[in-house]
């Protein structure tokens, strides 16, 4: 005894656990199966409806497939309807039994009742297999010219599937498109344009032929845009924005690669871009499609600028969806429309602060593309500004972008070094290994840079020892170039001079690192090595430095203990020998430098 669908729904809702639901469904499926065995089965309609529900819950319903076919083959329209719905939901084009419905489909396509024919068209359009599409193509094509708009519009989309499944048949239908575009029904027009776009996608060589239709399309668009209030098609004050978008999409396809045609559509595109209201979503949808078309065809620079400026306005919209699509599109065209996008740089940079993380990311991608040799200083400064307040996820993206951008466009190695040092200080945990490795290389290349960097790094690590990569880099630098700390660094256009640092202060910081329980082993062994080097660079302080090192000869960390012992012994060596041992790293050759700086300097 099977229950009504409503009862089943209620029963399922009442289930408190997944197991309970499984049981209830299983029981009902068994009842339905039994009912199906009965040829007469008066409740076939209701049972298939239940299967649709059960299928949606995620349970297998293969046993219901044949029942759908039986319903379709019957004469009752409500039963046919459920049968077709079942067909579309429970089967797919690979299901073997689908073939069996071909005959019913053929009959229904020619049915006198438009709704029956409509159902059949919908079913073919949704899940027609290549065989079914081929077998019934003749009928479908006839219906494309049917007197009834209801049938025509569905037949168009049915044909879209046909040509997808049987691309060899496309040539047969190309001529249909032109006549369909004179149709009065908007549904048919949308369908016809979808067909056109589909054909061009599959057979691009058809595009030149279809170009002849563009004057018609332009006129169509003009009518929609300039017509007054049309109650039948009005959406938020626009006349059929969906059709407008479809036409714009088609024009984009046809205008691409054709200068003359692109020029011919400039007027209407400019008109749409300028006159469409952007206060409602429907208007923005049309504007967006219009901009995509402007940027996709061979538009002149004036029109392109209009497109970019429209996107720029989108960035100021309250709706974050609109900001998002704007950033997305600008990123795609950034290389080509560099200059006109630069004008909106301020707004784009503001988006780095957007509450929505996907917008922040897109803005970051776009800003990175906008950096050039001229604006790198102010832009990097802005990006560094965000580093402090960025959340963990965004910090990583930001860090890697800053490093990449500065590697590519830095005006000088000094600027690059400064940037990386600040990144280390603010977000050291996010810095990639290859960036970390590159810094020592190019500091090593330049005397003045060495002096400046060791001062900057020393002060940074003196201020805060919380970032491991900063500590490591700073400590390495202090060891390697510590002698520069005894003098002030030279002033430079980018940086003020930094005063000399007494050695005691330096060793104080290093001592602090050694004694901190928060510092990882790597930092400590780097520090020991730095202390060894300093002992050589500042022979007068060897004793004090030696004392710091000695204290760790009994460290419980083997690596630290070993080094402390060995270095203590090394410090006993004769000065000349020690000096040679810990002499400066050789200046990197040009190739290594190129790699490290990413080509700068």
């Amino acid at each position: 005894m099977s229950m009504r669908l409503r009862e089943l729904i209620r029963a399922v809702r009442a289930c408190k656990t997944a197991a309970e639901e499984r049981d209830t469904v299983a029981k009902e499926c068994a009842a339905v199966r039994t009912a199906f065995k009965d040829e007469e089965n008066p409740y076939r309609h209701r049972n298939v409806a239940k299967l649709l529900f059960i299928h949606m819950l995620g349970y297998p319903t293969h046993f219901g497939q044949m029942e759908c076919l039986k319903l379709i083959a019957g004469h009752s329209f409500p039963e046919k309807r459920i049968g077709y719905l079942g067909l579309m939901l429970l089967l797919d084009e690979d299901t073997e039994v689908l073939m069996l419905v071909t005959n019913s489909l053929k009959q229904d396509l020619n049915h006198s009742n438009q709704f029956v024919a409509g159902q059949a068209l919908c079913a073919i359009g949704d899940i027609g297999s290549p065989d079914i599409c081929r077998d019934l193509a003749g009928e479908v094509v006839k219906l494309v010219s049917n007197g009834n708009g209801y049938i025509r519009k569905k037949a168009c989309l049915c044909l879209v599937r046909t040509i997808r499944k049987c691309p060899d048949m496309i040539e047969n239908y190309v001529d249909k498109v032109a006549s369909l575009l004179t149709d009065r029904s908007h549904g048919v027009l949308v369908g016809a344009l979808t067909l056109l776009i589909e054909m061009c996608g599959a057979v691009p060589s058809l595009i030149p032929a279809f170009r002849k239709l563009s004057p018609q399309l332009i006129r169509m668009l003009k009518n929609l845009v300039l017509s007054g209030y049309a109650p039948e098609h009005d959406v938020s004050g626009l006349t059929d924005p969906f059709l407008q978008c479809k036409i714009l999409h088609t024009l984009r396809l046809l205008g691409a690669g054709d200068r003359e045609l692109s020029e011919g559509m400039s007027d209407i595109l400019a008109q749409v871009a300028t006159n469409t209201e952007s206060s409602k979503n429907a208007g923005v949808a049309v504007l967006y499609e219009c901009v995509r078309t402007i940027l996709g065809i061979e538009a002149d620079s004036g029109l392109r600028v209009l497109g970019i400026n429209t996107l720029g306005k989108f960035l100021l919209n309250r709706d974050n969806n609109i900001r998002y699509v704007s950033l997305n599109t600008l990123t795609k065209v950034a290389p080509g429309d560099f200059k006109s996008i630069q004008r909106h740089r301020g707004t784009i940079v503001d988006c780095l602060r957007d509450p929505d993380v996907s917008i922040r990311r897109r803005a970051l991608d776009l800003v990175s593309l906008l950096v050039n040799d001229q604006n790198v200083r102010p832009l990097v400064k802005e990006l560094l500004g965000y580093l402090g307040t960025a959340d963990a996820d965004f910090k990583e993206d930001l860090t890697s972008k800053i490093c990449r951008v500065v590697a590519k466009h830095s005006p000088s190695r000094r600027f690059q070094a400064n940037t990386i040092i600040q990144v280390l200080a603010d977000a050291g945990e996010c810095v990639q290994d290859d960036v970390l490795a590159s810094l020592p290389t190019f500091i090593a290349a330049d005397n003045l840079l060495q002096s400046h960097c060791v001062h900057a790094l020393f002060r940074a690590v003196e201020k805060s020892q919380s970032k491991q990569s900063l500590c490591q880099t700073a400590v390495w630098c202090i060891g390697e170039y510590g002698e520069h700390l005894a003098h002030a660094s030279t002033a430079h256009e980018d940086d003020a001079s930094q005063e000399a640092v007494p050695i005691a202060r330096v060793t104080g910081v290093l001592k602090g690192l050694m004694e901190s329980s928060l510092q990882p082993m790597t930092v400590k062994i780097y520090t020991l090595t730095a202390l060894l080097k300093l002992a050589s660079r500042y022979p007068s302080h060897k004793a004090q430095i030696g004392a710091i090192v000695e204290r760790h000869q009994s460290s419980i960390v083997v690596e630290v203990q070993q080094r402390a012992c060995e270095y203590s012994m090394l410090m006993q060596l004769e000065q000349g020998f020690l000096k040679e041992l810990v002499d400066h790293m050789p200046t990197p050759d040009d190739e290594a430098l190129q790699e490290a700086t990413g080509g700068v300097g």
Partner: protein
Amino acid sequence: GRGEVGGQSPEEMIKFLILVNKQGQTRLARYYEDRSGMSAEERSTQEADIVRKCLMRGEQQCSFLEFMGHKVIYRRYASLFFIVGVDDDENEIGVLEFIHCLVETLDKHFENVCELDIMSQLEKAHFVVDEMLINGFIVETNKTNILEPIRFLDKAT
């Protein structure tokens, strides 16, 4: 053209349309691309996963996310998430507009539609969708045209 266009690979406008509530229960599901790959169970699990992803996002965040290589566009109306999977190149704002059209049409038909309406008259909801979409492409957006056949057939049966 410069930049994006293309139009080389055939695209569905809509690959799937699902209505899911906060608890991850699917109230309506239509799939328009080649779907022979997934079993009913797999699909159901995926639907719950998608809505979970939507739920994780705050009010501030935009209506687009990525799921298993698809671009997903969603909007919440009362207790239901209307979720649409599209191709990368689709006009997202246009899709949002279509979703809104669907909601308004359902609203007109069911008179202040709510989740329970969709649940208890599932086939009806499907019939409305079928008047608007075929194979993931828009076939009709005029509410009168969409609902006329449905009302006519309701009276006849």
